[in-house]
């Protein structure tokens, strides 16, 4: 954390509130992945609330926002029938595709972050073929959105590798950073980065444009 980083008081958020803060059809499919991904393995880690250190970067100003995430399983199950079984399958089934669990969990956590950090804003669209993933405004030629990614481990260095890219190596091609790519996009009126690491629980929420 740089000396200019401000520490904000913790924000508590109950996952079931997402059904109010965002479109329930978008939220619905991310709940089980969040429940399967966030706690991680080991009983000691599974106690609520789950605290993410969210580094928020807004117009060059950095702040650290501790996000304390919890949920009421009974309330969530009322909104998502069969949730417990679904979570169990994602945690234990050999057929479960971990990369998609991570992907969906990161979307779910981004819904939380949008609801907490920019109250009143709602995700209106989702796309996969080009950035950003979550769209806040679908106006042609002036899209507004949030590019999202998750890593099961690696903490801040893993998230910064997504943000800034990685140099090419013998066994791995150069990967450009999302921040530079998104900043260069003339068709985007506003774009944010939302990056999440499950272990340790760290996030970067950065507004790249305008």
């Amino acid at each position: 954390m740089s000396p200019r980083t401000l520490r904000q008081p913790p924000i508590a958020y109950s996952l079931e509130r997402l059904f109010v803060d965002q479109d329930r059809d978008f939220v619905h499919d991310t709940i089980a992945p969040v429940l399967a991904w966030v706690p991680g393995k080991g009983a000691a880690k599974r106690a609520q609330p789950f605290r993410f250190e969210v580094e928020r970067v807004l117009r060059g100003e950095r702040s650290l926002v501790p996000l304390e995430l919890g949920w009421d399983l009974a309330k969530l199950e009322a909104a998502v029938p069969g949730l417990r079984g679904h979570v169990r399958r994602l945690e234990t089934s050999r057929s479960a595709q971990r990369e998609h669990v991570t992907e969906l969990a990161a979307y779910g956590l981004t819904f939380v972050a949008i609801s907490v950090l920019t109250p009143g804003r709602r995700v209106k669209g989702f796309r996969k073929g080009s950035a950003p993933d979550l769209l806040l405004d679908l106006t042609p030629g002036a899209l507004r959105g949030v590019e999202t990614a998750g890593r099961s481990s690696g903490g801040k260095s893993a998230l910064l590798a997504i943000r800034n890219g990685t140099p090419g190596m013998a066994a791995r091609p150069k990967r450009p950073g999302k921040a530079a790519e998104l900043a260069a996009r003339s068709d985007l009126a506003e774009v944010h980065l939302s990056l999440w690491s499950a272990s340790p629980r760290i996030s970067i929420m950065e507004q790249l444009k305008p």
Partner: protein
Amino acid sequence: MSTAQELHELNLVSSSKLKLRATAQLAEGTADAVFDACVLFHEAARLERRAVDALSPCPPETALAGSIEECWCLLEGRDPDAAAEVWSRILNERDAVPKSLASSMLSRLQPRYDEAIREFVRAIQRYPELQRIANTGVIVPSSEVERRKTLAAVRTLVSDFPGVAMFWATIARLEEVAGEARRAWAAISRAVKLAPEKANLRALSLPLATEALKPAEADEHLRETFSDLWRAEAEVCLMYAFSEIVLAERSATGRTDRLKRALVAVNAAFPNSRTEWLTKNLKGVRLFLEASLAGRKADPDLLYRAGLGRLAATSGHRPIDALRAEATARVSAMSTSGAAA
């Protein structure tokens, strides 16, 4: 906001929800869940297209973004064959936006597309049976050994590419010929779920329904088609007619009503028939139905009178069976175009 803009957004929102649902199915990872994901991604791809089509004129970068998303959906839906069709459009649309923007917009899709196509071509080239289908348009080989080999090849391919409707249609045809009606039905049902816009797949599902389903279920399937005949394609009407004829021959109950419905379907098909074989086949079926409804025996020269002299001279079957066999083979062959070719 204009109506066009509203329609654009409505399609994008609907597509977004399907994509999230589909990704959740992929996360489950079972074969059935992955197939369900493929179906959802195909539907999302169609909605992405509709979203772009709703805007006229559509800004070039919005058109490109729509095609990129459509292509990605088809790749996620394990259908490189259909994705390749969209890719050709992308190459044209790319030229209409600034180079740096196009390159940035394509940075996620391009490597994914290249890899998927490489994998698809490699998989297909492993099977000479598929090359044969692509070259000849003939799905069912004359030898039993070849038929089994072809079926095994397509079954292997479909486990890697469960989103390619033409593979499921090919399986359906091979299983049908092998007398495995229920398996054929299961396969054609999957093909139709993936690509309901393809008339030939819906057409092929009709006779299979009469073979594989219980009579009441088959009738229900036919009833749904009959209620939509006014907007159905000619091949759907034709295969509907054959299905009613088969059921009429199987049981005397309701025979006349079935034949009348078949005639309605044939007459509805004529204005939409765009190929010579289809028009001649329809003529043959109409002659058969008119004779049957009048209580006459069908003219033995029916095929000649319909302009199908070659079929008459070579088939050796009852005229109506020859017509049905020809139509089934022709409609099945409509599914064999694409990357395999």
